[in-house]
């Protein structure tokens, strides 16, 4: 221990800390596998599945940021995923319909295009809404609840209720949203046949690159002073207040970022999978992704991504081989991870002194 009275000769504080290259090296390796190896070895159907998992991984990345780093357990990321997905779906529907009405509107007896839909004809507007709408909703929610110091389980329940409400809203507005069926039967994606292998291949690359870029951004954020502040808010919100920061602002910003990620993921999901519907964004899919993040390792961004991809594969595998067992397995895995390995799969690979 250092005495306060007899100060040791002040060692000049280290100006630069040695760089750790293992992280970037691992990222590069994964990038090569994702962008070169996978497209070469996987048949189109499997590559499409991977693209779908990678869109989930984008949502998971946001959950990792909000929950793992910021301590905000969000059980309603499906809402933002859905808002992004519907924004994209509406544009594709209008594009396919040309001068007419989207097919489901005709079936529902809608005669004129609802005003809400009209601006989504414009691709730039639609893409902007993919980011703006989820971001704005999360910002509004965050501003309202974090300022009132709603947190922990209360926040979790609130977000879950939001997911449930969103489903009810979408199902109820059949003529506007396609109801339970959602938006599907897409033909064209920005001038390409959406079902063509080449389009799907291009989409895979798009999803992978978007994930990579968002991951790098989140990683940079995590290492920044803001990232340190976020951890501090997670571990001692009241103390942070007495350091002169407003935790509500920190949380609102982070929650908004995570919502924007989910929105982008939803928009990419639509052309990859060819549908967006209430079943894809309700309480269950929102929870499934939280489970995936917990299994992968919520305290590390890479853990969140890993969890989403692994759980995606596991779900597909078991649904093909043992359809009845999957739900039980998923639940058991969650309990095991929470009980025995709270740091998730990635926790086994990390040195003890690294947590963030």
């Amino acid at each position: 221990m250092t005495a306060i009275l007899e100060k040791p000769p002040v060692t000049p504080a280290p100006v630069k800390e040695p760089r750790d290259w293992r992280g970037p090296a691992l990222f590069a390796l994964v990038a090569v596998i994702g962008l070169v190896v996978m497209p070469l070895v996987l048949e189109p159907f499997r590559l499409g599945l991977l693209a779908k998992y990678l869109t989930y991984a984008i949502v998971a990345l946001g959950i990792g940021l909000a929950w793992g780093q910021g301590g905000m357990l969000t059980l309603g990321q499906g809402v933002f995923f859905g808002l992004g997905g519907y924004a994209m779906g509406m544009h594709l529907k209008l594009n396919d319909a040309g001068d007419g009405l989207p097919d489901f509107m005709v079936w529902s007896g809608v005669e004129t295009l609802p005003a809400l839909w009209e601006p989504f004809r414009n691709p730039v507007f639609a893409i902007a809404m993919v980011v703006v709408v989820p971001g704005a909703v999360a910002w509004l929610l965050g501003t309202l609840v974090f300022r009132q110091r709603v947190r922990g389980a209360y926040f979790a329940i609130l977000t879950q209720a939001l997911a449930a409400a969103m489903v009810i809203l979408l199902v109820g507005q059949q003529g506007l949203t396609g109801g339970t069926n959602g938006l599907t039967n897409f033909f064209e994606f920005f001038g390409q046949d959406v079902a063509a292998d080449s389009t799907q291949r291009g989409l895979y690359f798009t999803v992978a690159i978007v994930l990579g870029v968002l991951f790098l951004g989140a990683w940079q954020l995590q290492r920044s002073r803001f990232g340190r502040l976020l951890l501090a808010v997670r571990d001692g919100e009241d103390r942070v207040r007495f350091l002169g920061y407003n935790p509500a602002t920190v949380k609102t910003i982070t929650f908004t970022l995570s919502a924007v990620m989910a929105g982008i993921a939803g928009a990419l999901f639509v052309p990859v999978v060819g549908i967006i519907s209430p079943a894809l964004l309700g309480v269950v899919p929102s929870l499934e992704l939280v489970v995936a993040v917990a299994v992968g390792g919520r305290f590390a961004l890479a853990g969140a991504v890993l969890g989403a991809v692994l759980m995606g594969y596991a779900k597909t595998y078991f649904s093909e081989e043992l359809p009845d067992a999957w739900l039980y397995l998923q639940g058991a895995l969650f309990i095991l991870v929470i009980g025995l390995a709270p740091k998730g799969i990635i926790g086994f690979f990390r040195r003890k002194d690294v947590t963030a």
Partner: protein
Amino acid sequence: MTALLEVRDVSVVFDGFRALDGVDFTVDHGELRFLIGPNGAGKTTLIDIITGLTKPTTGTVGFDGAVINGKREHERVRLGIGRTFQTSVVFEELTVLENLDLAASFRRPLLSLLARRRGVTEKVAEALETTGLGDLAKKKAGVLSHGQRQWLEIGMLIAQGPRLLLLDEPVAGMSADERARTGDLLTEIAKDHTVIVIEHDMDFLRRYASTVTVLHEGKLLIEGSVDEVRADPRVQEVYLGRAREEAAHDVVS
């Protein structure tokens, strides 16, 4: 020049219980003030009032000539009021250096926080030096001892360059050796800061205090030098007298 801190006629009522009752409390620039009183006297409540954690039922808190009743906690920190808590709360997942850096960065605009910390700023280096935590800079705060955590907290305060420091029982639970070091640290800080210290420990008080304010049952009992306060019969009754009774009790049992 007006006083730095002026608490005027503050009362706090919790569910009918008067935690503070018409307290006036003034601290001048550059003062080192000790705040004492038996358990439940309202010491921590008074600190909570000053820092905004508790809202006064009546009365005003003035800081540097302006009434700050309506300000929220983090806004008061930005005015220059810093505090520590009885149970130290440092961020265990962050290193000592990161804890100090976070404290020191609170005036940076939010956008500039998005950059990574490069090296150590002057303020942080200074806080490391004053608290003697230099060798532990890269250790996670979670591994620090109780005494080291308190010093880190005080260091975080110093790094913020506050105009008023409020320390809530900084030596509680410390060994004699740690107490002595904390006392020296306190003397060092008080040279160029205004400091209010809540302390139970009479021995510590005798060694390091100059001006003392005594609270009792939510009221201000007396204010004066250590000797005046110790000589006051009322203080002896409520504070020292109790200690004597406790001592007698110890002998009996």
